[in-house]
């Protein structure tokens, strides 16, 4: 006799994860290697400043919001920050997720002793508040996307797909941990499957910015730095 929920969970933890990981890892490496190998057109003009310092600085400085943005686009400003921070906290500070990273990167298995650290996991209040706020932020962002005529006009299918793929793991994780409804095993399986969908879509959508933002910011900063300008 089988429990179909357990079969689904085991598929999600087994072949499902393998498939998602292969597509995610290969796809992201292709994207980044392509960008690096293609490089940028060499600038023949004499350099007036350091490209490297300005490039590295820009990678970080562009995480700080522009002045006046809060008045100009309050939903994008607040929603954007809350979603990114909430998603980051839920992903990297929930205990069971740490087990996953430990298992993949092997912090406690094959790293040198000095490097085999694990950062602490947060408690339920922080994780669940972060998750709930991230979901609310995503809802607000979607509302503004649908009601603002300009934003609506420039939205593509990808934008809606990526939004859905980000909401599903947050919502299913919240439901699974709190046992809000459904069988706990089924909800855990659905949560893992939703993350696998996100992983599969990652290299082919604007989600790649989670990695490529470093490259684009560096290039932007380096170009300005070489000209002796600030970016």
């Amino acid at each position, binding site marked *: 006799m089988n429990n179909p929920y357990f079969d689904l969970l085991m598929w999600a933890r087994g072949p499902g*994860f393998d498939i998602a990981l292969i597509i995610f890892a290969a796809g992201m490496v292709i994207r980044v290697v392509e960008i690096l190998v293609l490089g940028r057109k060499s600038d023949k003009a004499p350099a007036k400043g350091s490209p490297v310092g300005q490039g590295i600085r820009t990678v970080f400085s562009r995480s700080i919001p522009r002045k006046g943005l809060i008045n100009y686009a309050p939903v994008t400003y607040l929603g954007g920050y809350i979603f990114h921070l909430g998603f980051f906290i839920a992903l990297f500070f929930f*205990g069971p997720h740490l*087990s*996953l990273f430990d*298992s993949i990167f092997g912090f406690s298995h094959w790293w040198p002793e000095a490097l085999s650290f694990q950062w602490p996991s947060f408690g339920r209040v922080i994780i669940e508040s972060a998750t709930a706020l991230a979901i609310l932020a995503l809802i607000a962002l979607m509302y503004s996307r649908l009601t603002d005529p300009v934003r609506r006009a420039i939205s593509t299918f990808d934008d809606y797909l990526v939004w859905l793929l980000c909401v599903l793991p947050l919502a299913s994780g919240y439901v699974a941990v709190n046992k809000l409804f459904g069988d*706990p095993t089924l909800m855990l399986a659905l949560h893992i499957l939703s993350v696998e969908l996100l992983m599969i879509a990652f290299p082919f959508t604007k989600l790649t910015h989670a990695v490529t933002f470093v490259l684009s910011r560096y290039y932007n900063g380096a170009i300005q730095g070489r000209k002796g300008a600030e970016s």
Partner: protein
Amino acid sequence: MAPKPMLPELMQAHGISRRGFLKYCASLTSLMALPPLMAPRVAHALETAARPSVIWLSFQECTGCTESLTRSHSPTIEDLIFNAVSLDYHHTLQAASGHAAEAAREQAMKDHWGKYLLVVDGSIPVGNPGFSCIAGISNLDMLKETAAGAAAIVSVGTCAAFGGIPHADPNPTGAVAVSEIITDKPIINVPGCPPIPVVMSGVLAHFLTFGIPALDELGRPKAFYGETIHDRCYRRPFYDKGLFAEGFDDEGAREGWCLYKLGCKGPTTKSVCATVKWNNGTSFPIEAGHPCLGCTEPDFWDNGGFYKPLSVPAGDYRKYGLAAIGAGAVAGVAGAALARAGKARAAAAHENVDAHDLEK
């Protein structure tokens, strides 16, 4: 078989007071999620039960289920519940053996045809019926023959309920659960490896007093398999605080923190272990410092490893991941090289055009 004394006489013989018996009935009533007013009815039904005939068949099993039930803090009232029925056939417990034992089974079946309760522990091999026989009769034949006249079947233990350990990959004997062979009788699954004694006696008492209890989609009584161990675990506050034992001998383990990272299956396992506990309410596996194995769930042996956390992939993902990174790097270089070659070709094919050419 000589007639057995009724329950009140047995209680007297074991020095159990009527007050003790009523207390037991009250706790059994609450355990079975029945309204408190039902307690006197449970007591009355147990005292005056018509002592239904019970035939207990043991197939591919380890006798752990019988051990669990009979060794429960002897002498208990659970034992006496066992005596409230007329156990007419049980390998391990009966004195008779060989043909005499089989004759007892056949006699009981004939005398109580259509009314006896069939209890099964162990799975049934269908790969080759000869893999497991009793008195020259294959398990499959004996189950079919005995089930034909049963009022209901109780599958005790995970082997009988879901196939259990014999069913584990690669399942060399083709072991299956009772419910995969018998489809025309009511079946109560009481999984666990072994099940908690009071759960077994509780199901038996429910059957004697009110008939078949409410069952979940896996055929388990909802009263005992309605909630996960995780939800009732005394270590749950540590999970909520994000405090986990990382090993069996680290600070977290000594402090009694959550065992999730050591592979605990509590979040996906439905059982009353955390509340009813074992050995007369002493403790349960998690309290003893070991993660839950999930033994009340089907295929628990194959559900990704006992010491792997539920959030960790169960497959050979690391090998695939490294291969994907290598293949991705090669494909990325190749893609970029193709793009560069295309750019170079385009540059080579470029023709300079001036104003005179355009006027032509």
